[in-house]
């Protein structure tokens, strides 16, 4: 098929699309704007822009076609199965989008008088009520913008607690080797040094090693649960106990909370703080990289240190506390971002939560775990499972099944693209060789999984049947084939410049 060439470079429904900078024509416009009219005297202080900006001028039909064509070069959950481990690519309900576009919820300014935004504060408060209830935790910080931001919020609260108690010796944070990269990066941002904790042969935290590393200089541990191998930390109560005995806090990376939501309360696991990725567990769209939201639940000990702002119940309705002195007893560690949190994401997450309810959420985590175990059971004889089941919401394989085939994990994943699937997560977690991490989510029907399983089994057979060349050439049916990342990094071209970005 790849040998078919066309005059235009287009291939049927697969259309080539130049950069906007290559299709503008000065004087066109895509928005009608009223004539500014005469201004007697401007107030620019002599600082009016000199010279052109360089932006291209396009009309609306050109713009619509441009982005429509770009969208067709993307694979989304709406397109097909997206088993990207650790990323929770579940269906994004359209009701959430509709609710987020109600003018009375979206056309609001964060600095309107509070009497005019009681409904918006209610959205924040109601979502907070659900998140606290599901987690069983007494407090939370709503404003973090994403998972990593929530991690930082949690660690800042922990640090504020230690500082407030005159305990400045605690400078170390213990992080398992299988952790997301955000964990050590976050600890460093809080002025902590990072001390890795090894995993045991069952893919869990080595509790004896953890115990040996705990001491009066440890501020907290950061443990992902279920962990990045898709396994529940079955010794979690012991982990919490020895951590607390050492005077340290238990921060849980809640990236995988979707596996247990509605079935397990975070508070019952001895966790002191955990962020909740609304864009994972509560199904707000990933949007090609964001926005997300990372509200962070906090234990009673950490609650006073929650950052500004927060919503409280006042005498005249809901009140938004923007300054510490408005809330007696509060010792906020600061402010984590502008305004009042990812409100648009809150609306979407709340719509999902209200749709599912406590019963639906329990079913959600049950089905997510069921699907992952079904994949594991259906594939473990042809792939190499890194750990015995049951797994939680995702299953982990390594590249032992590709030994001597000449095919790598990367090749295997790229072959899946030609088969119409988004690849699984590759080479993460780092604790196994050539990782393939699959997270099917609860959104997938059995027949979708069966189709995927059939393809994987056939590909595994192909790989073992010394057809490495075909894998190396994949993908062949995409708008672009494998891209030269080495060239991109050696000679970075990070923007369009006139005459410098010729179409290859």
């Amino acid at each position: 098929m790849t040998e078919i060439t066309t005059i235009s470079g287009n291939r049927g429904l697969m259309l080539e699309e130049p950069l906007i900078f290559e299709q503008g024509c000065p004087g066109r416009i895509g928005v009608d704007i009223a004539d500014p009219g005469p201004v007697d005297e401007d107030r620019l202080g002599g600082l009016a822009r000199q010279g052109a900006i360089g932006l291209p001028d396009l009309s609306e039909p050109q713009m619509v076609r441009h982005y429509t064509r770009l969208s067709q070069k993307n694979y989304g959950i709406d397109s097909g199965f997206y088993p990207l481990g650790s990323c929770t690519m579940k269906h994004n309900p359209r009701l959430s989008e509709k609710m987020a576009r109600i003018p009375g919820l979206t056309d609001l300014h964060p600095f309107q008088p509070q009497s005019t935004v009681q409904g918006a504060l209610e959205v924040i408060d109601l979502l907070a009520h659900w998140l606290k209830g599901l987690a069983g935790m007494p407090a939370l910080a709503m404003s973090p913008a994403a998972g990593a931001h929530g991690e930082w919020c949690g660690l800042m609260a922990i640090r504020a607690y230690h500082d407030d108690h005159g305990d400045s010796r605690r400078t170390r944070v213990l992080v398992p080797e299988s952790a997301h990269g955000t964990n050590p990066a976050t600890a460093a941002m809080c002025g902590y040094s990072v001390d890795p904790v090894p995993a045991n042969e069952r893919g869990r935290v080595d509790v004896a090693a953890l115990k040996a590393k705990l001491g009066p200089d440890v501020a907290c541990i950061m443990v992902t649960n279920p962990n990045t191998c898709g396994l529940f930390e079955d010794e979690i109560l012991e982990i919490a106990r020895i951590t607390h005995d050492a005077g340290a806090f238990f921060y849980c990376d809640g990236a995988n909370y979707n596996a247990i939501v509605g079935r397990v309360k975070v508070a019952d696991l001895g966790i002191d703080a955990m962020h909740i990725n609304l864009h994972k567990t509560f199904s707000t769209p990933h949007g090609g990289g964001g926005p997300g939201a990372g509200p962070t639940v906090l234990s009673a000990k950490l609650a006073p240190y929650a950052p500004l702002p927060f919503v409280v119940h006042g005498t005249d309705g809901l009140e938004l506390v923007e300054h510490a002195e408005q809330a007696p007893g509060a010792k906020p560690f600061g402010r984590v971002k502008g305004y009042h949190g990812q409100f648009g994401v809150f609306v979407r997450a709340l719509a999902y939560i209200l749709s599912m309810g406590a019963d639906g959420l329990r079913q959600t985590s049950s089905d997510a775990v069921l699907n992952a175990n079904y994949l594991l059971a259906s594939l473990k004889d042809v792939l190499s499972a890194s750990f015995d089941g049951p797994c939680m919401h995702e299953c982990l394989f390594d590249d032992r099944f590709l030994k001597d085939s000449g095919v790598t994990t990367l090749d295997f994943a790229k072959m899946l693209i030609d088969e119409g699937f988004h690849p699984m997560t590759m080479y993460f977690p780092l604790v196994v060789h050539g990782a393939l991490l699959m997270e099917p989510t609860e959104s997938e029907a059995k027949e979708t999984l069966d189709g995927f399983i059939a393809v994987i089994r056939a590909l595994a057979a192909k790989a073992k049947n010394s057809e490495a060349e075909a894998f190396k050439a994949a993908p062949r049916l995409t708008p672009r084939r494998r891209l030269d990342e080495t060239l991109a990094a050696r000679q970075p071209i990070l923007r369009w410049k006139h005459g410098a970005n010729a179409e290859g």
Partner: protein
Amino acid sequence: MSMYFTKDHEWIKVDGDTGVVGITAYAQHALGDIVYVEVPESGRELRLGGDAAVVESVKAASEVYSPVSGTVTAGNAVLADQPALVNESPEDQAWFFKLTLSNPTELEGLMDRAAYDEYVAGLE
């Protein structure tokens, strides 16, 4: 001129109290296509085992540690524009920096070629 090696895959060629440092053929092979190198500026004081340079491939970044203590006399400016040289000529043209050794006895803790080759063979 003698050549010594570290367990972190740096090499150092020594002539009197002058040393030239780079990374080994094994190291560049393990990293893959090198896309970026950052070398220390002249005058920087380095200590044995301390961070001295950075070498990056597309998916990995590695610190290069100084095999000995000393003062940098030159960084190899060519590598900024031609990081691929590390892949092509790791133990010759793609030297990272030159330094004046402050404590030549530190060389005694390093491996010679035969010992390094044996060490590498044990890693595979």
